[in-house]
């Protein structure tokens, strides 16, 4: 029982310290700046961005693709690990579920930021046309938001009931809220069986839904005639890329949360080692699709594609291209192959490299293609031949990132980031096996 108390003490949500408060204020300031930039964009039009008729999509779309990609982590890694009974997932699942939820919500918001007429959002429903990949997105994104919310919420129920009890005397107000949110969870057999069944159904459902989400995201590009997008490789390429980006985000978050909340006893080197191996698998898969996407086409590239590929590999885009390939994929893969590379601190760097590399990778997928149309770019201002995001675009980008981090931070603040009930169950089980009399 004493063990259980320390466990509870350790895993229950904790008030922000000084550091936490500063962090929250910092995020809110960035979000407010982003909001101001966005209002300006709505009033003056997207002329405040550096997008023009050729670079007609920019950083907003690459942000969108990035958020969609990171949302893959909870859905598939958690669901897959659950279905394959990998018990090492226990202290990591909730963090993954939180990242997924925050990412997919921000993906939905980001795509709206890119709209020239956000006031006509409802046209997407009033005049919806089913053959447009955007309509598919309109269907799949809310579906994913709902499912990933349930995947986060259902496993939380027992923990919320525990927290209700835990705060009963010290913080009655909190306790009441936790009680309401726990939907009168008592832990009875019938409740448990309903909960287990529901989670299983959601976990099974979220796998195809996530795969569809990533694939539709890829089809936004491959349903056009554009060089670099018009590829049958895109769907699988995006799924494997999301596998990498999502796990990278998870590794980074797990490290930071463990550090801030002092959870070293619960998230151990063992978990990082497992995560590292999982990420290495993801990187290998992604490498395979990258070879399919960039290396093999070189052999038969028609003129236009050749121009595009050489601009990526050795031209204007080479620094970013190689940065995303080497820092975002190859270097992490090499590091992860060594046991030392899978230690927590080196995993933090791997995670950061993967996340930053993945972000730029999306940029490389979206923008160079638009600047290599079939017909030459002529008769327009010189600046339209190039694209680099404007101050508005950067501020809004950082604001969306800050919003995602704020959602994650608030969840971490008010929810147990490591499932209490399940950890307790598992610990008891191992204790019983090793030491039956205690």
């Amino acid at each position, binding site marked *: 029982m004493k063990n259980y108390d320390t466990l509870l003490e350790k895993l229950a949500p904790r008030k922000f310290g000084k550091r936490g408060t500063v962090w929250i204020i910092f995020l809110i300031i960035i979000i407010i700046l982003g909001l101001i930039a966005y209002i300006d964009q709505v009033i003056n*039009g997207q002329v405040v961005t550096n997008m023009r008729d050729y670079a007609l999509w920019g950083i907003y779309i690459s942000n969108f693709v990035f958020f969609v990609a990171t949302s893959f982590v909870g859905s598939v890694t958690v669901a897959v690990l659950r279905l394959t009974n990998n018990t090492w997932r226990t202290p990591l699942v909730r963090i993954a579920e939180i990242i997924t939820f925050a990412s997919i919500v921000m993906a939905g918001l980001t795509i709206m930021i890119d709209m*020239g007429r956000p006031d006509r959002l409802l046209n997407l429903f009033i005049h919806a*046309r089913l053959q447009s990949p955007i309509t598919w997105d309109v269907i799949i994104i809310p579906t994913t938001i709902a499912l990933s919310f349930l995947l986060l919420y259902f496993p939380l129920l027992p923990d919320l009931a525990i927290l209700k009890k835990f705060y009963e005397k010290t913080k009655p107000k909190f306790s009441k809220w936790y009680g309401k949110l726990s939907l009168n969870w008592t832990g009875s057999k019938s409740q448990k069986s309903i909960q287990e069944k529901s989670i299983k159904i959601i976990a099974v459902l979220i796998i195809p839904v996530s795969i569809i989400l990533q694939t539709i995201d890829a089809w936004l590009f491959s349903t056009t*005639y554009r060089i670099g997008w018009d590829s049958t490789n895109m769907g699988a390429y995006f799924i494997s890329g999301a596998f990498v980006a999502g796990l990278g985000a998870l590794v980074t978050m797990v490290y930071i949360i463990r550090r801030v909340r002092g959870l070293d006893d619960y998230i151990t080197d063992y978990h990082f080692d497992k995560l590292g191996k999982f990420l290495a698998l993801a990187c290998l898969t992604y490498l395979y699709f990258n070879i399919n996407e960039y290396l093999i086409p070189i052999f038969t590239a028609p003129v236009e594609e050749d121009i595009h590929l050489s601009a990526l590999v050795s031209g204007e885009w080479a620094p970013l291209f190689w940065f995303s390939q080497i820092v975002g994929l190859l270097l992490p893969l090499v590091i992860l192959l060594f046991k030392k590379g899978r230690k927590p601190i080196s995993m933090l760097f791997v995670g950061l490299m993967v996340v930053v590399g993945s972000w730029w990778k999306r940029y490389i997928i979206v923008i160079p293609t638009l600047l290599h149309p079939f017909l030459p770019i002529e008769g327009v201002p010189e600046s339209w031949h190039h694209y680099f995001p404007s101050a508005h675009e950067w501020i809004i980008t950082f604001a969306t990132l800050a919003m995602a981090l704020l959602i994650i931070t608030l969840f971490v603040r008010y929810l147990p980031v490591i499932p209490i009930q399940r950890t307790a169950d598992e610990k008891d089980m191992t204790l019983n096996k090793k030491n039956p009399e205690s």
Partner: protein
Amino acid sequence: MEDNNPRSDSRRKFLKKLSTGSVLAATGLAFNPLSSCKDKSTKKTTLLTPDGKLVQVPNSEIEAMEHLYHGAPPEEARKGIPGKKFVMVVDLSKCKNARKCIQACDKHHNLTPDRPYIKVLEMKDNEGSSPYWLPKKCFQCDNPPCVKVCPVGATFKRSDGIVLIDNERCIGCRFCMAACPYSARVFNWGNPPEGKLNLPYSPETSLPSKQGTVAKCDFCPDMLRQDKLPHCVTSCPNGVIYFGNELEDAVTNGEETVRLSTLLRDKAGYRYMEELGTKPRVYYLPPVDRLFPFEKENSENSAS
């Protein structure tokens, strides 16, 4: 088709009158009587109705209509002009990049020079061949990639072959621009440069343009409704652009009228990037036996 100058002059005057904010404009004049020519006498006039019947109407009942003069309103603009399949043929051997088509188009669509609907591109097919000028508009494809991807049906294909945009429905996602392999579409990134035009909106004129929506070459259906040629055709000093109705198998550049099938056969007409399967309604005649040498600067385009 006769010279359209007198009419377009009166149209411009008319536009001017509108922008000064006449009462008529405020009442939304697409279908309102413009000016009454009611006659007190008992004389009758014989008129032809749209369905082909001859009717007699007392002069006292006749009212001048401003019907469709500015292009049809959004709902009607979706239908297309019956009995027509518009087609364009561009003779590359005659183009010297005089840029008069661009200027006329910019003027009539209220465009600024930095984002015209028409571009005249310097093209070179391979290292050995000589460069030539390629006037490029919207190809009004019969299998339009832009229409396929539009999530709200803001861009549509009409029965007369024209692809138009309803900028009152467009959500500004720019997917159509990404989908167009010919970069034919432009976007209103900021407030339209002409300021507020006090006109009823018609997709057929693409006016007034709206912030955050897509626009492009529209083949000037407002002119076609009056049996006139698009502005780029009439403004070309060298008769480069032929325009006509595919169903009549005839195209004209304003000076000579030729059989479309013969022209395409005799001069080896082709469509740009036929292999994409978009089935453009704009044909090109190869730049052989050219009328002009290839010059970047010439008397006509440097003057402008």
